[in-house]
């Protein structure tokens, strides 16, 4: 299959998040950027699907500045065949989706992967938007996928359980944990990644529909109140009278 995997880069999961003094942006000093964990699953699963059928290509695409290239190279080292970078600051989800849809529209991909959500802005929106722009069916938060012929069988999380659905290619899916174990690049992968094609394309349009007015750090907790482990009645009374949650 001809597969496209959307890859975003995000602050490492251990990052202590702080904002610039004007509260307009993330303080990126000292922050290490990684491939969004769900996108690593998408890349891995795309490779696995093609390995099973013994053919096809995996293209990764990122909307971002030149600073994303180390992570794009990592995706290539994991095994993707080629990469596309749309050269623009990804400041709005619709803008990102539109750039990717513009590129994909003429390419006839059988399958498109996004992550369930980015672990920075946590929107879970880019996948659905791309699918709608391309008029494709999409299955969100998937935990398993097989494709035979042009029929995909996909397992997805739903409220209170899971469900198996069938859908014909082309379609879009969003990767969730459990889909697979992320592949770790080996030495050979890292070497060959350097020479794999990475195409840089200029962004098309600047339709931004949302804007961050202000960030806020979470309000600090008042501090924990310790309760004697032998006095659970006191905890219950506090939860009822003080916290009002019982």
């Amino acid at each position, binding site marked *: 299959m001809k597969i496209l995997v959307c890859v975003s880069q995000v602050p490492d999961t251990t990052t202590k998040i702080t904002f610039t003094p004007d509260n307009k942006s993330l303080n990126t000093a000292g922050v290490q950027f990684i491939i969004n964990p769900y996108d690593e699953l998408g890349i891995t699963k795309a490779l696995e699907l093609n390995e099973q059928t013994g053919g096809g290509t995996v293209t990764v695409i990122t909307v971002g500045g030149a600073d994303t290239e180390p992570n794009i190279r990592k995706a290539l080292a994991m095994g993707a065949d080629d990469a596309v970078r749309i050269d623009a600051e990804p400041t709005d989800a619709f803008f990102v989706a539109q750039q990717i849809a513009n590129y994909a529209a003429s390419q006839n991909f059988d399958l498109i992967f996004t992550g369930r959500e980015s672990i920075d802005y946590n929107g879970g929106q880019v996948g659905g938007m791309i699918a709608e722009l391309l008029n494709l069916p999409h299955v969100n938060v998937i935990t398993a996928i097989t494709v035979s012929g042009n029929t995909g069988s996909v397992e997805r999380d739903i409220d209170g359980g899971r469900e198996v659905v069938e859908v014909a290619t082309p*379609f879009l899916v969003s990767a969730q944990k459990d889909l697979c174990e992320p592949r770790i690049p080996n030495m050979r992968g890292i070497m060959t990644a350097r020479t794999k094609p990475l195409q840089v394309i200029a962004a098309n349009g600047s339709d931004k529909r949302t804007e961050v007015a202000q960030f806020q750090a979470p309000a600090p907790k008042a501090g924990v109140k310790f309760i004697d482990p032998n006095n659970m009645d006191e905890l219950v009374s506090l*939860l009822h009278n003080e916290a009002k949650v019982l």
Partner: protein
Amino acid sequence: MSVLVFAENSEGRFKKAAFEGVAFASAIAGGSVTAVVMGNMDATQVAELGKFGASKVLHYSDASFNAMDAGVFAQVISDAASKVGAQWVIVSNTYTGKAVAPRVAVRLNAAFAPGIIALPEGNTVKRSVFSNKGFADFSLNQSVKVVSLTPNSYSFAEGSGTATVESCSFSPAGNRVTVKEVKKAAGKVPLTEAEVVVSGGRGLKGPENWHLIENLADTLNAATACSKPVSDVHWRPHSEHVGQTGITIKPNLYIACGISGAIQHLAGVSSSKVIVAINTDKEAPFFKAADYGVVGDVFDVLPRLNEAIKAFKNS
């Protein structure tokens, strides 16, 4: 102002999130709203939405809408939004809502904000970002605005209004997703919408001890959750894993049992209204994020807490 809300049902019954969404929509509208309901549902039940602020319900009752197909749902909801000239469209931030809302926004040329946690102020909405390590106010710069509401974010009460129900039909275009098999998870209360969650970590020592968590959850009518390593080694199903790489939840009460409180775990639970941590180690990081702490052994504390809550409920 014209506001449309999608009121989700599960097997013919509304979820609490649906009532919350209708009440929230009605607060934005400053009056009554139109709700969309999809799939088979009893007419008197559909009319229930009146009690939460809907004056009219557009019921797309075709049985093919019982199963969720994001592309199809988005077509129906945007059809309804255009019918009523909606300036705001409200969806719940459930699995269904997450899949459907971005597509609705694209169809309506709308600005979209997922997972908002409070009423908008003008065009500005608030949501949590960076896995609960911060909040952001987003301004929505299109004339139509689509938002999904994080469950348990808005307090509301049942009123006495009534809604008229209009039966609608719609033939969706395009390729479809068909459901082949449904696997319901074991827990009775869905985790994403639960008001109380009892959660266990490696401190529980093994799956055979989970009755301690389940008994307390039963008493509290709570959902059960776990830390990542617990689901990684299959002590508990993955669907219970909360945190940065799992589910994000926002219950009124989160009880963390034998969980250290790593930053990635807290990312999924720190916007809970009240957190209780139970841990043998008084230096455990969870105590920095908790409102109430018990330094003690879960094997000893949980049965006692369970008895104390039972006694309280019976009093």
